[in-house]
C-alpha cells in the first residue's frame, strides 16, 4: 500500500516532517514558517554533556519542541505514542498506513542504511515520514534527502529502537485535528516573541550569553586542553553549527527566510529589513566556520588564532543581542 504523499526536501528534519505532514493535510506551510512559529532558533552550551568526546553546543531547541510549539500556536492537535516493544510499535505503524495515514517517526541515525557512513553517529532525534509499505519494505520520506527512500522492516525496527540519549522508543506522531480558521499571524507573533525571550535570556549558557560563554571557553582550550583536544573541540563547534541539523549558520538563514515570509503575512516592513540583517549575521557565522576550519585543518596552531575566532564569536553575540532587541520592538 502506498499513500499519495508528496515529498519535499528540507534543510532540517523536524521542520521538514511537520511542513510535509501539514501540506499533505491541505495546509501550505513552508519549512521556515514551521521553524519560526515553533521558535526553533537557539544557542545553548550544555555543560557536562559530552558528544563524541567533545562539549555539546546546540543551535536549536530540544527535539520535538518545534513541532509541539508550532502545533499549540496554530491550533493543531497531535497524537504522539511511544512503545515498550518493537512489535507493538510496528503494529501501530501498520494500522496507520492501512488507514491511509502517513505518520512521523523519531529515529536514530546510526543504523540508517541510506545515510553515508560518515554521517552515521548515535544521534537519536532524527525525523522522517513513513507513507507506505510494500511487502516487508517501508516507503520512507526523509526530509533531508532529495527524494524518497525505503527501509526494510528490520532496518526500521533498529532505528526506531535505537538506544542512548533521546532514545526514540518507537516514537510515532501525526496531526489529528486542525483549526477551522487557519490564521498564522498570531502564531507568528508568539513564535518571534518566544525566540527573542530565549535568545536574550539572563542565563549564562543560553542565547547571546551562551555565545559569549563559548567564546571564553575557546580562549582557554589551547592552554587547558592542549592543541589536539582544542582542535577537536573547535571542530565539534563547527560540526554542531553546520552539520548536525544544519545548526547555526544554516538555521540563521532559515530564520531570515521566516522573517521575510512573516513580513508579508503581517504586512510589516520592519521584519523585511530585519530579515536582511539576519542574513548578514548568518554570513558571519559562516565566516567564523571558515576561520575555525583553518585552525583545525592543520591540527596545530598558535593560541592567538583561537583568540581571533573567539573575538568573532563575541562580535556575533553583540550583533545578535542588538538584533533580537530590535526584533522584539518590531512587532
Amino acid at each position: 500500500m502506498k499513500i499519495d504523499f508528496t515529498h519535499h526536501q528540507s534543510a532540517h528534519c523536524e521542520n521538514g516532517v511537520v511542513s510535509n505532514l501539514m501540506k499533505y493535510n491541505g495546509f501550505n506551510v513552508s519549512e521556515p514558517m514551521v521553524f519560526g512559529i515553533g521558535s526553533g532558533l537557539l544557542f545553548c552550551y550544555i555543560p557536562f554533556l559530552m558528544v563524541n568526546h567533545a562539549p555539546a553546543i546546540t543551535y536549536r531547541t530540544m527535539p520535538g519542541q518545534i513541532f509541539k510549539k508550532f502545533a499549540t500556536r496554530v491550533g493543531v492537535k497531535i497524537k504522539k505514542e511511544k512503545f515498550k516493544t518493537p512489535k507493538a510499535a510496528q503494529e501501530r505503524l501498520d494500522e496507520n498506513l492501512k488507514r491511509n495515514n502517513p505518520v512521523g517517526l523519531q529515529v536514530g541515525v546510526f543504523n540508517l542504511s541510506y545515510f553515508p557512513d560518515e554521517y552515521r553517529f548515535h544521534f537519536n532525534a532524527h525525523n522522517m515520514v513513513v507513507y507506505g509499505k510494500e511487502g516487508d519494505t517501508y516507503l520512507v520520506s526523509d526530509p533531508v534527502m532529495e527524494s524518497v527512500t525505503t527501509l526494510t522492516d528490520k532496518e526500521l525496527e533498529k532505528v526506531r529502537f535505537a538506544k542512548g540519549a533521546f532514545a526514540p522508543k518507537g516514537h510515532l506522531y501525526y496531526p489529528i485535528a486542525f483549526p477551522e480558521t487557519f490564521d498564522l499571524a498570531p502564531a507568528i507573533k508568539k513564535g518571534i516573541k518566544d525566540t527573542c525571550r530565549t535568545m536574550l535570556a539572563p542565563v549564562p549558557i543560553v542565547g547571546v550569553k551562551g555565545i559569549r560563554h563559548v567564546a571564553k571557553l575557546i580562549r582557554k582550550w589551547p592552554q587547558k586542553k592542549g592543541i589536539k583536544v582544542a582542535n577537536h573541540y573547535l571542530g565539534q563547534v563547527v560540526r554542531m553549527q553546520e552539520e548536525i541539523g544544519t545548526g547555526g549558520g544554516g538555521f540563521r538563514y532559515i530564520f531570515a527566510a521566516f522573517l521575510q515570509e512573516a513580513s508579508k503575512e503581517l504586512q510589516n516592513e520592519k521584519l523585511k529589513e530585519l530579515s536582511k540583517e539576519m542574513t548578514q549575521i548568518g554570513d558571519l557565522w559562516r565566516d567564523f566556520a571558515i576561520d575555525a576550519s583553518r585552525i583545525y585543518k592543520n591540527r596545530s596552531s598558535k593560541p592567538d588564532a583561537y583568540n581571533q575566532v573567539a573575538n568573532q564569536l563575541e562580535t556575533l553575540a553583540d550583533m545578535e543581542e542588538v538584533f533580537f532587541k530590535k526584533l522584539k520592538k518590531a512587532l
Partner: protein
Amino acid sequence: MKKSDVPQDKSNLESAHFRELCYAVDENGEYTTENSTGWTPKTIALNNAIQDIKERTENARKRAEQGLTSPIEYFMELNKMDLGILTSYVGFFRWQVKRHFKPNVFKKLSDKKLQKYADAFNITVEELKTMKYED
C-alpha cells in the same frame, strides 16, 4: 548568502548521491532554496572527527591484542559508541561495563551476557571473542 554563493564543494555526501538543501537569497533579495554538494570547512571538521574515532579504535584494538583491555572496548569504539551509549544498549550499569573491559573478567562472562554485547555490536559471540568479524 546569495543563491550563487551556495557552496558546491566535494564532500562525503557524494558517496550516497545526495545533496543537502540550503536557504539563500536570489538576485531580487527573495529567499529561495538551493542544493549543495557540500562545504569544505564542514567536510574537514567531519573528517577530523572520523579520524579521531579511527585513532581511538586502533588504539583500543592494540590494547585488546596486548591483553590490556577486552574486545568490548574495541567494538565500542568501532561502533562510534561511548560508555553511556553502550550501557543503554546492553542494559548493564556503567561500573559493570567498565568491569567487563578487564580481560580477566571478560573471559569469565556468561554467554548470555556476551550475547547482549554481540547484539549491541551487530556481531556474533564468536566474532566478539576473537575480534574477527565481517562487515
